[in-house]
């Protein structure tokens, strides 16, 4: 093992998506210096190409699965799935950003470069099989996202958002690192399989192991905004630019959940009796806190922020099931959540107008009269968030609760189902506004959506519907991926 540190060509191939993203990210940074104001848009196009290329590389790496770099990374179906997911998220957010940045007069290359770098971190998280890589990936992803959250420097809300995200995020990382240190002390290794092997031995100080798992849980729970570590999410989503809110609520969250499941379903699997009650409680608390707080929101971005807490709760229900069907349910959930949530945020970014003046629910009034197509697509996203059949959101919820019932979590399922019905109330406020009110001032002055924006919205809606009507192929893929966790 220690004889040859020189990686094989195959290992570079497995790492190719990250390499491609880095190359394009650096290229965009360099080009930033030599382009004038009018050419900035081409930087966005270049980063789009980069993401597509990385996606292709990700598909290519599917042909040759395996570990890379001394088992620091493992490229399996699970990793490929999450790499693909964060890349799609990145793609949609870059598409949605073109007209947004144009409108705010903030078209720069850094913005796109930061998204690319953030994606690098998330790709590493998706394939990390060592706690050190988890930490590195999380930092790469987070630092880029902190900056993106405050990207519109002149906007005080943007600054508030970035500062809050940064302070609480660092705090969470500290917890995570502390947990990693404990685990290392206990297992003598940071490799996930190694840790599992140590923990599988009986009488191996399982209280300490439980504590270490708890610390790591806290760190990751912050990142995925699970109650009681959710305080930052609504403020940050509300303050950040809408495409970035879309990005944060889907990309980093999916990547953090990828680590969450990999860690708890492999390394900490032997001590699952210790962490399942903790996850059970956090799942229920998230659903309740998210849904009930969302009931009284008037700001759509804030509402979606709270709803994202509730959705994180549903995903934790899948973790509580601690079964391979639970893992595949969570994977499916994250995919459909990413599509529907990005779609909703993108439509909001379109209606918000310059400096995001129109982000209250009333501002959506009459959208169905003025822009029937955009309104119908927003309705699809909202119905999917509610969990109405023939949308991805329904299958996701269904699959999660099926996993929970198969693991005999009857009470959690019943409470979760009731929660999802209550959630319908606040989502429907959006539908009521767009279809059942006369057009207001915000909608009256709306320009037609730009082509790139339309592409992002249509792609998300198309994906949401495909996942709802023909979910077979994705369901098959996620259940194969999930079965790789023993």
């Amino acid at each position, binding site marked *: 093992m220690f004889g040859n540190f020189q990686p094989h060509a195959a290992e570079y191939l497995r790492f190719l998506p990250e390499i491609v993203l880095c190359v394009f990210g650096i290229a965009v940074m360099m080009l930033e210096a030599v382009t004038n104001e009018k050419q900035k848009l081409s930087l966005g196009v270049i980063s789009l190409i980069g993401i597509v290329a990385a996606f292709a590389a990700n598909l290519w790496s599917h042909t040759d699965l395996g570990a890379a770099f001394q088992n620091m990374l493992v490229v399996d179906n699970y990793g490929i799935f999450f790499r693909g997911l964060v890349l799609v998220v990145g793609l949609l957010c870059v598409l949605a950003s073109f007209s947004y940045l144009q409108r705010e007069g903030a078209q720069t290359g850094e913005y796109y470069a930061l998204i690319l770098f953030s994606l690098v971190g998330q790709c590493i998280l998706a394939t990390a099989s060592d706690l050190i890589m988890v930490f590195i990936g999380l930092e790469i992803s987070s630092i880029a996202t902190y900056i993106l959250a405050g990207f519109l420097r002149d906007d005080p809300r943007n600054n508030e958002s970035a500062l809050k995200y940064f302070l609480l995020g660092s705090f969470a990382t500290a917890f995570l690192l502390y947990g990693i240190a404990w685990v290392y002390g206990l297992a003598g290794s940071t490799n996930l399989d190694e840790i599992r092997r140590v923990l599988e031995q009986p009488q191996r100080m399982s209280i300490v192991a439980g504590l270490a798992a708890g610390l790591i849980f806290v760190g990751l729970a912050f990142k995925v905004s699970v109650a009681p570590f959710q305080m930052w999410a609504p403020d940050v989503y509300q303050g950040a630019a809408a495409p970035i809110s879309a990005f944060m609520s889907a990309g980093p969250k999916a990547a953090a959940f990828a680590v969450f499941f990999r860690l708890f379903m492999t390394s900490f699997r032997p001590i699952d009796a210790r962490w399942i009650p903790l996850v059970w409680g956090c799942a229920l608390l998230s659903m309740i806190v998210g849904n009930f707080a969302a009931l009284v929101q008037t700001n759509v971005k804030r509402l979606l922020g709270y709803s994202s807490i509730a959705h994180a709760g549903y995903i934790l229900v899948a973790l509580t099931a601690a079964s391979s069907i639970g893992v595949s349910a969570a994977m499916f959930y994250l995919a459909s959540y990413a599509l529907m949530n990005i779609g909703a945020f993108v439509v909001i970014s379109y209606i918000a107008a310059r400096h995001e003046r129109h982000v209250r629910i009333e501002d959506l009034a009459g959208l169905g009269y003025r822009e029937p197509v955009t309104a119908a697509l927003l309705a699809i996203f909202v119905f999917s968030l509610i969990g109405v059949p023939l949308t991805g959101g329904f299958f996701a919820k269904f699959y999660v609760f099926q996993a929970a*019932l198969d693991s005999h979590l009857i009470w959690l399922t019943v409470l979760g189902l009731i929660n999802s019905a209550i959630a319908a*109330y606040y989502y429907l406020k959006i539908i009521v506004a767009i279809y*059942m009110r006369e057009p207001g001032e915000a909608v009256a002055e709306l320009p037609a959506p730009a082509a790139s924006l339309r592409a992002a919205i249509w792609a998300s809606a198309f994906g949401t519907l495909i996942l709802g009507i023909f979910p*077979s192929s994705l*369901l098959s893929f996620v*259940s*194969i991926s999930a079965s790789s966790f023993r």
Partner: protein
Amino acid sequence: MSLLTAVLLMPLIGFFVVLFTPRKSKAPYGVALLASLVTFFLSLSLIGPAIANGARFSSVVDSQWIDSPGLQIRLHLGIDGINLWLILLTTLLLPLGIWVSESMIKDRRKTFFALLLLFEFGLIGVFCALDLFVFYVFWEVALVPMYLMVGGWGAGKRGSAAVKFFVYTMLGSVFMLGSIIYLHSQAGTFDYVEIMNALQSGRLTLTATQQLCLFLGFLAAFAVKVPIFPLHTWLPDTYTLAPTPATFLLAAVMSKMGAYGLIRYSLTLAPGGAHRCAPWIAALAIVGIVYGALIALVQSNIKRLIAYSSISHLGFIVLGIFTFRQQGADGAVYQMIAHGLSTGALFLLAGYMEQRRGSMEIADFGGIATPAPGLATAFMIALLASIGLPVLCNFVGEFLVLQGAALARFSWAVWAALGVILSAAYMLWMYQRAFLGKATQQNASMADLSRRDWIPVLPLIALMVWLGVYTQSFMPSISSATSHVLELTGMNDTYRVRVTPGSQPSALRTTPTKVIYVR
């Protein structure tokens, strides 16, 4: 493509075509009407095989929908004597609804027509699904367009009425979803026929507690949808504020979703639970019958009055189902169709009155029989059907339900009969105040029904008479299906009659004639 698939998909195809028609033209209306008429004529050919097959499912469609290692779902559809007539009712009323919308819906008509077709798609799916998962999917699919129609085109506080309607239904249906998933974890399949086979052959047994929980889970969804007292509070607001075509379809067909679910799934999947709860549900149904009638008595708004009368009549359906008697079940299914026709017609005619007068308050009318004799006559016929006059449709249903109730427990029949008497009282009193007497100045010039207005009314009246006079066209197929359901519940241990007089049905080919047997 099989016939049933064609019937199911035709409205969906129509929906997509309507989406691509130009907004400001007659095209959306034309396409929608054409699609719904084609659906209707296609659905007529379901009758033959369904009647020939007796209690077994006919026109069966069974194809793979979702195929993955974790989840296998088949699109399993079929027709028997219970859902056959409900599907026909749906496919008949939809073109009428579209016809009416043409004159009653003023803005965003294209969207409205598209939603009507989507609604039809969902309803047909609900009625013909034989897979619990597919059933749930269609159950929710039918809800969304109705919610949008109520909220988007209704009157007054339509937004909050629509949200109330949606959230109420959703709260009920998540419990059904929980039950369905739980049943899957026990049986390993969502297929209704397979689950029933497993239950019958003893491969799958459910304990009394499991049956009770499953039953209550399903009941939560169905009771809200019917609605069973005290879960009816969404109904008056929704029926009153919805635009006329939506109210027409809500009352006539959507309210049957819950009753259909009760008789198809609740009774057979968890017979133990159903039997244990039957006295309670029958009691609630009777309370609903009497309560609905009493509240209807004091309404000043015609639409609201019909809405409460609807609660009362739907109580009969639920009561019939939970008598566990052949007559009760037959009566319940018959009443579903009869109520669809009579209440549908009442809401439709009330809609015409609202269109002419701009109000639904009884006090604003009075003496309109003089300027509008056609309207008054049509209203009278629908009203008489609704209160259960012999020769018209509701009489048959209510009579059988009362007979079943009397067999099950005599006091039920006595209390429920009170509802019949009250219904005559509030309906005739309302008719007297609104139609008879001397017309006021404003009402004196009220226009009568035009030829266009008569078109949707006539088939309804014709069917009311047909169902009232020639029961034999419908009852044998209903009876054979309901007796099969009762057989599956295994609870009709005392007394059962199969009402199939052998006089006519040479064309119907149902073999059992006047079988009376005692178990």
